[in-house]
């Protein structure tokens, strides 16, 4: 494979790709974990959802 670029220092585009990629997965994980750990709120929501969504396929 021919490698043209000699200086590999992070370019603005490289910074952007790195920050967006790392930021996306980190925020997704933190948000998901926070939702998992917010038990009080989630129990309430779950109760609401269960009332709304009885599974018609469960018999």
């Amino acid at each position: 494979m021919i490698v043209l670029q000699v200086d590999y220092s992070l370019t603005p585009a490289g910074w952007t790709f790195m920050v967006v990629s790392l930021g996306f997965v980190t925020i997704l994980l933190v948000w998901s974990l926070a939702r998992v750990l917010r038990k009080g709120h989630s129990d309430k929501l779950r109760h609401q959802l269960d009332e709304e969504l009885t599974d018609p396929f469960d018999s």
Partner: protein
Amino acid sequence: MSQDSPLAKREHWGTRFGVILAVMGSAVGLGNFLRFPGLAARYDGGAFMIPYFIALLLLGLPLAWAEWALGRYGGRRGYNSSPGIYRIILKTRYAPYFGALAVLIPVGIYMYYVVIEAWCLGYACNIAIGALGPNQNIGEFFANFTGLKQDGLGFSGDGGWVSFFVLLCFALNFVIIYRGITSGIEWFCKWAMPALVLCALIVLVRVLTLGTPDPSHPELNVLGGLGFMWNPRTTGAGFWDSLANGKMWLEAASQIFFTLSVGFGIIVNYASYVRSDDDIALSALTSAAGNEFCEVALAGLIVIPAAFMFLGADGVLNTVTPPDGGTFALGFVTLPHVFSSMPLGQFIGAVFFFLLFIAALTSSLSMLQPAIALLEEGLGLTRKASVALLGFVTVVGAGFVLYFSKGLTAMDTFDFWVGTFSIYIVATFQIILFGWVFGIQRARAELDRGAEIRLPRLILYITKYIAPVYLIVVFIFFVYQEAMAKGTGNRFWALVHDPTVRLSVGFLALVLLLFCFITAASVRRWRRMEVAQPDDGGAI
């Protein structure tokens, strides 16, 4: 409820966090820390992330949600194994046999994965005691340790204790799996996953503080390493040319597919132990997010930047580009060399390979449970008997892989036919089963049941229409690519001409036959139980 009914002896995860960590542990493996960085480096770093994240959203997450939903649905009806779960959703006599293939996949992968796990442990120990350091020929060590040049080397004294490490890994896996879902897998993953992240953070801090390790090459520094990994244009191709590379899209889709462990028959099994009103939508998302964090945020900052600082761009590209390079070359030849060259390298190298060992162990554990579930609920065996029977089958399989080590042919064949080809088949079957047989309405009801987040309806349409097409196109390209490969690189050609490949495929066919027999016996048993107790397992 009858004592014989699968419903009568159901196991559950102890905590919700436990199941999330267990699924995360199953997904985080060597692919995260070795395959992903290698692919990203090969395909222009940043540019690779575009098809990667598109595949995550259109293929990975929908498949993960589908597997979690199918698993919990089956679990609520008393089934934990893929044959049982497929059977209650698709009411044809052939459906359970797709389940047999879904049991073969994790067991077949386990047979060679446990050997690689043993390499990781062996490398960690050898680096820790200084037996694999700056003065050693690492390529030769790898060849001897893995038996690369000669069949049966792993069973001789020249194999560098690899058999001992394989036995140790086997014992660890089976002791943990014998303890059961809560006391074994969940307990282990609760400490192993934080330990894995801690090890990764230690290595990450070391790599990011290396500065310029060799002052005579000032261009080989941390920012250069990060640039090589993340700049959208590092090789000859321009950014848009890179994006037009179909092979990159194919590789990105398969990386997402394999890193999330979808189509392995594992998530279906794990999700079947979730309680009927526990959330699965958020749990699936959290597990996937944890896996992506380990892959992108940890491995993406460690492996390639470290290799770049000591080998330069050409060295890294040679290491990650087939036919001479690849995952094993990067992980077991290049990285030990890199660690041996850096300050504190002995400690960091040992920590890194211990990290790989933990990642492999949490994955290999998950590969045993689907078969245990089938043996328990299908044949009515006790856990002890199931573990013993599976232990025998997997010892024979791992012994086979360990013996036929020349050129790593047996391992490569197992990886191709079970760890890749069969996975595409099962994943395609599952996504069609979910979107078209289970149906969108029932899928929505199942995903919303007990859910703490409401998934957009769009996801279900993606699951029904886009994900299957995406998967089938990737599969067709994959088969085409393999069929067009030249000479010994062509797996179909090798199947006809290479005796070790034929023997390996024959062995796998025998194991599949065994699981088909077990499935047939299980179906007969379930039918008898349904006739006797129509309200139990037959509550379809």
